[in-house]
């Protein structure tokens, strides 16, 4: 066990897996010689050569499109999109090509690559360095969507992503990149997709979140009889853990950074009422980002931080 940040855990995992599997290739803007603007790919070029870790021209559509062809030909590309706010030039490649490749070719071709990208606010990044676009990709069949929230999860989920036969969007919480340290095993291990983590047990409210938000949720629930669930992956979704918890608590708060309207919280609320309607004792509460572009100066007012989540918890607990 070594204490690592998320950056260190990801970098360590990439080095470990690159040494084992020569199909692995990683690339992106500044991902080569420089090791990425967040240093996640640091040292890979020196260790494994320029062909396997390289800088790309500045085009997200190109990074993903190029990766699709490499994956079809049998390599395992790890595409880095520098900020998830810049994933949209690659949106067509992801949604129309990557996600549909296996299906539209009748299972003849597939492109199981991994797209790594930092997401979320709290770093004074304004709206082009702070967004959480996960919901946009959950509306597209064919993609796995992973939301990292700790160094331990970063390693275990990345190993699973690299073994996946399907394309994976791997969202990393940049506000926690260096601020959160945790013991991470040296040896390789994997965390299966679709397996949520119960971070704190409780019986009066179920509090659901993912990515950096789970730490706000934990802080909000401190000292309260609240079950805090970290979903880890949104597709596949661990609906079983959610249903079991809600049947026990009867009250639900869902918190995410992305704007509330048509966010993944809306889908969760629909699923919970479908499966747990007769167990609910209060309306499901969503505590999310506002329906505004992500602000710069006022990001503290926009984000569903711990005090706001606590307010939401108290509200659902008061409801009769």
């Amino acid at each position, binding site marked *: 066990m070594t204490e690592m940040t998320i950056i260190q855990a990801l970098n360590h995992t990439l080095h470990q897996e690159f040494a084992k599997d020569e199909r692995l*290739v990683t690339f992106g803007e500044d991902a080569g010689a420089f090791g990425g603007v967040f240093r996640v790919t640091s040292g890979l070029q020196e260790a494994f050569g320029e*062909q*396997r870790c*390289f800088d*790309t*021209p500045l*085009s997200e*559509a*190109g990074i*993903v*499109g*190029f*990766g*699709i*062809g*490499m*994956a*079809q*030909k*049998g*390599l395992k*590309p790890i595409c880095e999109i520098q900020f998830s706010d810049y994933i949209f*030039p690659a949106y*067509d*490649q992801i949604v*129309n*090509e990557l996600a549909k490749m*296996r*299906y*539209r*070719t*009748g*299972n*003849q*071709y*597939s492109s*199981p690559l991994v797209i790594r990208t930092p997401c979320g606010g709290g770093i004074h990044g304004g709206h082009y360095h702070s967004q959480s676009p996960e919901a946009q990709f959950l509306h597209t*069949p*064919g993609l*796995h969507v992973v939301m990292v929230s700790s160094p331990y999860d970063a390693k275990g989920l990345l190993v699973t992503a690299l073994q*996946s*036969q*399907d394309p994976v969007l791997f969202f990393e919480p940049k506000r926690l990149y260096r601020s959160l340290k945790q013991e991470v095993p040296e040896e390789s291990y994997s965390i299966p997709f679709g397996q949520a983590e119960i971070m704190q047990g409780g019986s009066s409210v179920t509090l659901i979140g993912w990515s950096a938000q789970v730490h706000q949720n934990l802080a909000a629930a401190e000292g309260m009889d609240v079950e805090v669930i970290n979903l880890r992956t949104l597709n*596949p*979704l661990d609906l079983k853990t959610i249903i079991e918890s809600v049947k026990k608590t009867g009250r639900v708060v869902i918190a995410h950074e992305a704007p509330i309207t048509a966010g993944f919280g809306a889908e969760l609320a629909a699923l919970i009422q479908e499966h747990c309607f007769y167990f609910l004792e209060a309306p499901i509460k969503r505590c999310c980002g506002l329906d505004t572009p992500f602000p710069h100066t006022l990001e503290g007012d926009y984000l569903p931080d711990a005090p706001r989540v606590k307010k939401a918890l108290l509200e659902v607990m008061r409801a009769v």
Partner: protein
Amino acid sequence: LNAVTLYPNDLVKRVHEDQTLVHALKTMIKTRIVDERMIILQRQGIITFAMSSLGEEACAVGSAAALDLGDWMYPQYREAGILFWRGFSIEDYVHHMFGDAKDLILGRQMPNHFGSRALNVVTVSSPIGSKIPHAAGCAYAMLMQKDPHVAICYFGEGATSEGDFHVGLNFAAVRKAPCIFFCRNNGYAISTPVERQFASDGIAPKGEGYGMKSFRVDGNDFFAVYDAVLTAKEYALQGNGPVLIEAMTYRMGAHSTSDDPTRYRKEAEVERWKDKCPILRLRQVLEQKNLWNAQIEEEWKTEINLEIDEAILKAQNTPKPNRESLIEGVYFEVPEKLKAQLDEAAL
């Protein structure tokens, strides 16, 4: 056009074996007859849609003839000729046009969205430019895997206005990927003529702009296309990076069965191209070599039409893909969630 290397049509011909020439002409004729028959089927309401490569057959067949099976192909919908060159059967093709249970893609896309893993032909995607970066990435993988082959990507001149064209060329050029970008400049993107598509002198200069060798050839000349692609492959495999080929041709037919070209172009313009028909031109060469006469062609046509008749009969007697196939292949494994959705969708 100073910056552009014009491809000389009189380059020494390397395709000279009788067998190759006969297969080429027969494949072009097969492509044309299959296209015509599929359009008739659509007009009869038997299939939903059809597209043809009428007048552009030399582009597909000439380029395929210069490559071998290990070279990956990323076609657009006007490249049925590459499939037939590589031995795809009319029967498999017709099953695809019907979208039935024996369609290799299980009816998941519209007709003319063919592909074959066994033949290294990547299934067509409707968006015209999105596969261009894929071909570049595939070629880069070949470089990394020390696989001595190339990827070839086909598209029309309209696709060159898409961002993916520029992205794909740039990535391939920077990474020196052994990729051949094959642009059929056929004059029209549905109804939009080239003069409303770009202000440049065609497509070839754009390749030069990205730092790659670029050829412009007569796309209706089988030998010119063949030589250009063969030269491009040799050049790319020598580590020189990608090549762009602009093949000048003309879309003799409609864009698709949903199109009516009389609304936007004059019949006289179409007439002018009839003399340049790629099949007529290749036929002349074979005639001089005593490899072709009217009787031989009639025999070919009869044989091809019979094969199509049989294929249509089989397709008409083939059921639709299984209902269960609706949820297969979205992911490597079918998720329980999709099984539940399919159950719920049942009446």
